[in-house]
């Protein structure tokens, strides 16, 4: 069994779903981490869950990226620790500069909650090693600010480094190059707007997201 840490900011609201998916469906250990903690427990992967950390005041993810826990997580990531940011967690990761680019307001200017189809662009990451390359998967989105943007040079860089992990089949929010999720150069930090933790059981619409967590488990076992 591997250990996940789930960070809880005031205003996080997908923390319980992430904990449920990891502990009850993927059957792994989970430790909650409070935003004021400066020490983090010994975990194999940290999840930054979705929600509205600090009420999205200023800009989604902006306040959270200055929180005490994030300074520690930065060091954890720089040292190769696995971090996955989902939705608001992705916004936190770009605000923290652990991932390149920004997340703008959706092109429609509206919140979009919908099941979408993604394509796995890179299955050579610790988060996607159990997927097939170019596999189509169904995972829901629910966000207002998920329109990924980076300038042309940055896009070229992240393409060269195979940092684009997931793309949308029918781009719902205007993201450049249909980007739904990207990782860092080292492939140990992933940010994505869709919610894999909400797609872990077919009863609630799709179980494709479970492979993300199972991939992490697999890759952790390999490195151990």
């Amino acid at each position, binding site marked *: 069994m591997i250990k996940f840490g789930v960070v809880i900011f005031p205003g996080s609201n997908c923390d319980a779903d992430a904990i*449920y998916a990891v502990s009850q469906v993927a059957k792994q250990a989970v430790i909650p981490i409070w935003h004021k903690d400066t020490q983090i427990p010994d975990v194999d992967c940290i999840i930054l869950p979705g929600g509205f950390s600090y009420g999205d005041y200023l800009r989604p993810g902006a306040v959270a990226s200055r929180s005490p826990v994030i300074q520690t997580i930065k060091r954890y990531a720089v040292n190769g620790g696995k971090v996955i940011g989902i939705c608001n967690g992705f916004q936190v990761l770009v605000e923290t500069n652990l991932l390149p680019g920004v997340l703008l307001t959706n092109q429609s200017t509206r919140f979009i*909650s919908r099941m979408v189809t993604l394509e796995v662009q890179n299955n050579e990451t610790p988060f996607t090693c159990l997927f097939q390359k170019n596999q189509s998967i169904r995972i829901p989105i629910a966000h207002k600010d998920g329109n990924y943007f980076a300038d042309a040079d940055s896009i070229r860089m992240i393409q060269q480094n195979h940092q684009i992990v997931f793309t949308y089949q029918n781009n719902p929010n205007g993201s450049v190059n249909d980007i739904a999720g990207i990782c860092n150069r080292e492939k140990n930090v992933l940010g994505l707007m869709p919610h894999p933790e909400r797609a872990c059981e077919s009863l609630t619409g799709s179980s494709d997201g479970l492979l993300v967590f199972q991939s992490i488990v697999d890759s952790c076992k390999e490195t151990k």
Partner: protein
Amino acid sequence: MNPEIIKQFNMSISDYQEIERRLQREPTIVELGLFSAMWSEHCSYRSSKEYLKRLPTHGPRVVTGPGENAGVISITDDLYLSFKVESHNHPSAVEPFQGAATGVGGIIRDIFTMGARPIASYDSLCFDLPNNPRARYLLNGVVEGIAYYGNCVGVPTLGGETRFDSCYEENPLINAMTIGLLRKKNLRSSEAKHTGSNVIYIGAKTGRDGLHGASFASGVLDEEAQKKRGSVQVGDPFLEKLLIEATLQIIEEDLIEAIQDMGAAGLTSSSVEMAGKGHKGMRLNLDAVPLREDDLTPVEMMLSESQERMLLISKPGKEEKIKSILDHWELDYAIIGTITDTGNMEIIHHDKLVGIVPIEELLHPPVTSVPPIQNPALTPLPLKPPAGILKEKVKQFLQDPQFGSKRWIYEQYDHTLLTNTVNPPGIGASLLRIKETDQFLGVTLISNGRNSAINPYLGVQTTIAQCARRISALGLVPTAITNCLNFGDPNLPHTQWELSQTVEGMREILEAMEIPVVSGNVSLYNEGIRKRIYPTPTIGMVGMGSITHPLPIGFPAEDLCVAVVGNTDPEDYARETLPSLDIQQEILHQKTIRSGIQSNLFVSCLSIDRGGLLRAIQQSIIVSMIGFEWKLPIDTTQQWAYLRCESNGRYLITFIPAKAQLVDQLFADKVPYTKIGRTIQSEMKLDRATQFSVEKIAEWYQHSFHDRMDF
């Protein structure tokens, strides 16, 4: 007292005289404020209380009936469900975004006040037709407000309904329902229990927003009302999210005796109701109230409707523990009073007693009775049926925004959060799983004002029957309801007639179906300058049960038999009266449908209600893009009426041909059922001339309403 001041408090002279009579003196300003709030229609239900007493409120699963913040029923011995629907019509009519947002915040507070974690919200929205720009402006603001609050606070919005009728032009209806789960040991009440206990204020600071909100909601919407935008509260869902976590932790650790949220009339109604319920008194020290602006007067503090605030009565010695939880969540905390045994509400400000009133007097306004008399001139005229051949009529229907997808609305609501959503919003009742049990919940929230305007007795019965059908079509048992009665000016005899007929109609069908009412809300004065709304009872029904595998929504495959369960009477179409309703037959159909689902006889099942069979076919087609071919020999002049009538007791089912005999046996001769056709590849074929491709039907369905809103 100066009549101008009395008027400012939206109080009638006769009510004022009654206060003087009861107090045997002139009230202070603070006391007048308390009376104006507590005697308002919004807080006191003075015009509807007598009727509401007639509703059935007991049943084997009822844990808490009407009278608390929300109703509670049992799912298992240890697991309870709390739910309630509430209106926020008046605020939304003048400030749609904040009006709707705070409506959602208010109903969610009612649920966690009971000790329950809110798991889903639903909304019933009634507006003028979307070709009216103001209706679109209001609807846009309301939907954004619901989305803003619900998405951020972390409670998914899983469905509801949208209705368009010109009667809602000046006065749209926004009814919000929330459901929540709780453990038996965490059930809480608002009743003050022990003299000497501390009264604790938690949550947001008090400001000037929402002043006179309760009395504002107790008058008609005229030009003056439009100027009262300042009476609309401002919501902060982030703060409420923190308040949910803090409150549920305080309850889990068993630190309080009682709890009440500060909703309409804020501190006044919460404190008066808590003390009143326990036949106690309360002394409030306003100097301790956390303030946003420090020059608030005592009456402003008592009447402010600032959001995201709660009142707790602590268990002795637990104050420090409560404070540490609030510190963790960075919320305000203040001991602002104590429970007394005097039966009085005492208000202290700057160390002076500024008001002292017997709580019993606040809780019992004089009842003015208006006789219920029908005014037949207010009955709406029947709708004109469309002209043309069948193909033209069907096409018009398929392009009608009323029957088009409401994805423009529900895609703005997070509906997958908390991972309980089995059926996404859009079609039929909402279906949720309950984690770590084998139980499922079915929830539906619908109204039909037009039916109630034609016949309030049968109208509400039809709505309740439709709810029960939707729940049964999921294979679940209808268990309990909450209701919101949206009506006009209670001083009109006709409104009183509508109310009494509605309540009588509800009583009869609920008793027969053994479905209790566990919570509800009454919203009166839903009138503008020119128009009054149809009497609009909104019914929120909850059903439960275990199902081995939920049926797919819509037609899942080709070559299935398609049948209508129940009797279709084409004469029901375009009649001046409502389709008849045989309650016993309705119950029998529900039971039979559930047993068919339990025995795994059907491939899919959808109840037939608004829009008739044609809408059920339309919705069944678009889910998996499977077509339908009509096979039933029928007189062509009758086919449109057959497709569009809203005869009661009906379901659209599909089954594999190999099970036809078993299906025959299930219905035998007790439940009429008619095979109408089969599912086919890619078309809807109704007759030789009336054929549409599935793609076309889906395109119209997806765009007819959506494109009107996104422009």
